[in-house]
């Protein structure tokens, strides 16, 4: 199977999203903002006004806090950029998407296919995963400049809302589609066929633990 590469806007058309296939490699152009638990709580639970026009300025929500510093003169020193695991944000995402019109959720490791079916597909949104996940230097290169940092005072550098101007920023991999398919679950299913052979001759621990599964096709997220 050959791997397809795609340039995609951070305010993508519905057609551009519909065209994406699981496993496509994507490079992004346009504005992307970071939002994780700090931003979600402040916007959704404390009802603070979101300091951007969404989704007209950006429909791309990055689960990330960059390795960056704000200089004394107020300029930014942008280093490496790496995503954080997204499954922890399932609690806030449905409301966030409804409120902001986000179409691209960008992060680490994807969500479950149930999340995709329940609120990604109805919102016309898909998930892009970062690669590795350590490709922070490559992604850092794709940041043309930092447009703004919102809520730094309130949330600190790591949780603040960074607005990044992306120029062929990537690579990312398409991890869900508009049918609600999940790339990682597809791969898990392929690997599952082989698991029994790897476990052959091993034995379960004498001392059990509460809440434990013995089904290796399960996931821990």
């Amino acid at each position, binding site marked *: 199977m050959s791997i397809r590469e795609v340039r995609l806007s951070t305010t993508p058309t519905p057609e551009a999203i519909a065209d994406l296939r699981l496993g496509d490699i994507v490079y992004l152009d346009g504005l992307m903002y970071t939002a994780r638990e700090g931003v979600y709580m402040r916007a959704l639970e404390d009802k603070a006004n979101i300091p951007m026009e969404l989704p007209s300025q950006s429909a791309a929500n990055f689960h990330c806090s960059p*390795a960056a510093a704000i200089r004394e003169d107020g300029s930014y020193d942008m280093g490496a950029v*790496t995503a954080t695991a997204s499954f922890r944000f399932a609690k806030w995402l449905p409301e966030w998407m409804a409120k902001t019109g986000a179409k691209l959720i960008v992060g680490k490791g994807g969500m479950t296919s149930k999340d995709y079916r329940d609120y990604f597909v109805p919102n016309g949104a898909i998930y892009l995963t970062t690669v590795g996940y350590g490709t922070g*230097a490559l992604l850092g290169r794709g940041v043309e400049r930092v447009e703004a940092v919102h809520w730094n005072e309130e949330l600190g550098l790591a949780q603040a809302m960074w607005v990044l101007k992306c120029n062929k920023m990537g690579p990312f991999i398409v991890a869900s589609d508009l049918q609600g398919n999940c790339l*990682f679950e597809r791969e898990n299913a392929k690997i599952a066929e082989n698991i029994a052979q*790897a476990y052959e001759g091993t034995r379960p621990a004498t*001392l059990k633990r509460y809440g434990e599964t013995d089904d290796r096709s399960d996931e*821990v997220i």
Partner: protein
Amino acid sequence: MIPAELIQSTARVLMDKAAIEIPQDYLDGLQRAAETEDGDLSSFVLRAMLENYEAAKEDRRAMCGDTGVPRWFVKLGNEAQVEGGMVALEAALRRATAEATNSVPLRPNRVHPLWRTDHDNNVGIGAPEIEYGFEPATPEYGGAWIDLITVHKGGLFGTDYRMLFPSDGIEGIKRFYLDSLMAFGKRGLACQPAIIGIGLGGSKDICMTLGKRASTLRIVGSRNSDPKIAQMEDEFKELGNSIGMGAMGFVGKNMVIDCNIEVGYCHTGGMPMSVHAFCLSSRRAVARIHADGRVEHRTDPDWFTPYQRRETVDWPAHQEAAE
């Protein structure tokens, strides 16, 4: 007498090197993995990582945006002395960590567990961790040196502990090892292929420490000095790579770049075990500071010397010349 100022300036350089330059042993291991990988997505990931290390060095920017938790291992030759004493040494390492966070820059990851207070400098209560080891004087280097080792350990996932028992045997050890790889390898939560460290024995905390050190303080290709454990290391590496899972949990055959096992004596009734993954950003940097002010940089921590693995009551304070 080693000046505290020299410790701080050396530590600053180490913070930079660790964050930016992937150690050669891991790079070689990943290159070998990239050559053999035939899963299309997983080999794309490995190629992107190799490009990423290049980009980091070219741009002098951190290889990964997640700094993990920067920490220090300090090994002191038996006659090492620091100007201002050990309190000055600890202050120097904390200052270097804070400065590097701002200047590289690194992500300020460290927060209070409850109040989420962030000093934006990776310093706080118990952070960075500073751990110590000691070493007898050797004919080659004497005993008046200090090794500074920094490790920027990533991975909220990928680590686990379990109390096993002698009756669980090697089969039980294998099961828990595979369980850890399966649980955290899916979706690539462990950012594999990794250097897997296994701690066997010790008390619960030391079991974790042994595994952590096995993954972070031993290089790819090193083997335990006990030949039977060395054989297990080979076997476990192969076992991990036979699951059929590669980078990011995609179909592939490279999950484990190497598997290092360290042991410590434990309670006669138990066999505690821990598993750790040193990720795609296996960041470590080492320097030896001599009493005369010379600084030698390297990437092999060389932590597990015969002295660290000693079994006897006594040990000579001066090592004899090697035969």
